[in-house]
């Protein structure tokens, strides 16, 4: 097996989003030095939008700006022919023992954790969110060395602390979920190009061909329709909290975060190089615009939760901004679908 990489020490990689970061750092550790966060995000078809019906998170609407947890790692590894081992545990002892064996073997592993008990996170960020990802890559005395992709530096956790976050409870409970790539072979440029094309095609499907009206670009319209009614339906205070939740899901680490539109723009720019196709770089601009507009909408939403904007016309304006964003993203994905990048 990958003997040529075994001597390399693990290097911490800081990224905008945790799952991209785990994917990037683990694949780089196994010798795939070209791997970058945008590439992982794009090959894994990470861009998405969904307002999950009948579900609330922290007493607000459940909105996600990226694809479901776990998918980015899974798809990117698959595209590169990397086998992935995953395990979940019903017993905490078994989960600890398995991790200890991996640490002893010197194999960095990805772990899904809950952020509520994550001691190196600031308290303000600790909500019950169970799909955070980090890498355990070693042990010093009785502390595990932790590479958390959203942190600038490496962190550490005691055995109790680590087990506690690995066995966080509630929705998306990680159950000690541990995963790592195995059998990583050298990757050709052809495979990368194929992975990029597949990733883009799948993202086009997710954003503009997905049925229903609450996911993909139509999901943005769905939320826009909700926002228009929130002032009358919920009252100003609650409406402000809901808008605050959208901003946090869009921007904040610990809940979602990552500025995903800019990340996708960066991916298309990188993809243009691999595919030698400048059309991708041109479409990248659309996502930069979309990202800027999401931020502009966030500023407007902040006006409501700060109590400065109170009129229905302010809510209508926010709703209209979302409709504009939808048009831009829809148009961009339609352009991508017409490119015929091949399999």
């Amino acid at each position, binding site marked *: 097996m990958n003997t040529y990489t075994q001597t390399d020490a693990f290097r911490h990689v*800081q990224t905008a989003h945790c799952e991209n970061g785990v994917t990037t750092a683990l694949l780089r550790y196994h010798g795939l030095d070209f791997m970058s966060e945008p590439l992982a995000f794009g090959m894994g078809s990470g861009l998405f939008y969904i307002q999950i019906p009948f579900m609330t998170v922290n007493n607000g609407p459940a909105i996600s700006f990226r694809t479901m947890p776990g998918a980015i790692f899974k798809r990117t590894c698959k595209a590169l022919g990397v086998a992935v081992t995953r395990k979940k545990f019903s017993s905490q002892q078994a989960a600890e023992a398995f991790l200890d064996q991996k640490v002893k073997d010197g194999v960095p592993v990805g772990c899904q954790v809950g952020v509520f008990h994550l001691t190196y996170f600031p308290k*303000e*960020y600790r909500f019950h969110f169970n799909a955070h990802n980090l890498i355990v890559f070693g042990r010093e005395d009785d502390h595990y060395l932790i590479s958390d992709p959203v942190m*600038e530096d490496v962190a550490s956790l005691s055995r109790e602390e680590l087990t506690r976050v690995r066995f966080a409870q509630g929705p998306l409970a990680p159950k000690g979920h541990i995963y790592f790539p195995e059998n990583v072979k050298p990757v050709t440029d052809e495979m990368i190009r194929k992975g990029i094309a597949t990733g883009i095609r799948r993202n086009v499907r997710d954003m503009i061909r997905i049925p229903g009206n609450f996911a993909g670009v139509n999901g943005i319209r769905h939320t826009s329709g909700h926002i228009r009614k929130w002032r009358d339906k919920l009252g100003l205070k609650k409406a402000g909290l809901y808008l*605050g939740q959208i901003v946090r899901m869009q921007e904040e680490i610990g809940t979602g975060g990552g500025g995903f539109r*800019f*990340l996708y723009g*960066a991916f298309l720019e990188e993809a243009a190089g691999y595919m030698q196709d400048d059309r991708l770089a041109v479409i990248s601009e659309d996502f930069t615009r979309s990202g*800027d507009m999401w931020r502009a909408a966030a500023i407007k939403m902040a006006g409501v939760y700060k109590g400065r904007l109170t009129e229905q016309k302010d809510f209508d304006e926010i709703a209209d901004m979302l409709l504009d964003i939808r048009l831009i993203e829809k148009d961009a994905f339609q352009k991508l679908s017409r490119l015929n990048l091949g399999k």
Partner: protein
Amino acid sequence: MKKEDLPQDPGALAKFTREVCYVKNGDGKYETALSVGWDIKKQALDSAWDEVNQRVEDARQAVLAGEKSPIHYFMELRLMDIPVLAGYTGFFPFFIKRHLKPAVFASLSERKLEKYARAFDIPVSELKNFKTSNP
């Protein structure tokens, strides 16, 4: 977003880490830059915490007024809802709803109280002798 427009407004994260952001450099190409925060995000987080603190205070009043059991207060204090608490205690949501009633709570066995205390990370005594002040 252009690199020069990247906000640097210190927030809750400032003491712990900076965040990676993807921005456009002078040549119109993407690169990464570090940000200490953005006021818009900070205010969203602050208002979420104002809401949490209000809920905790409301819960405290409800317990003092004898309308709810202390479980309700600690559930709010730990930012939990019933599904999350069900996960940590192993009780079905239906039973947790019952345990929120002061009368039912008063008859709970020591073993059940211990499960709640462990989920809330407090000693059982704190659950049994509910104090009027904020911890």
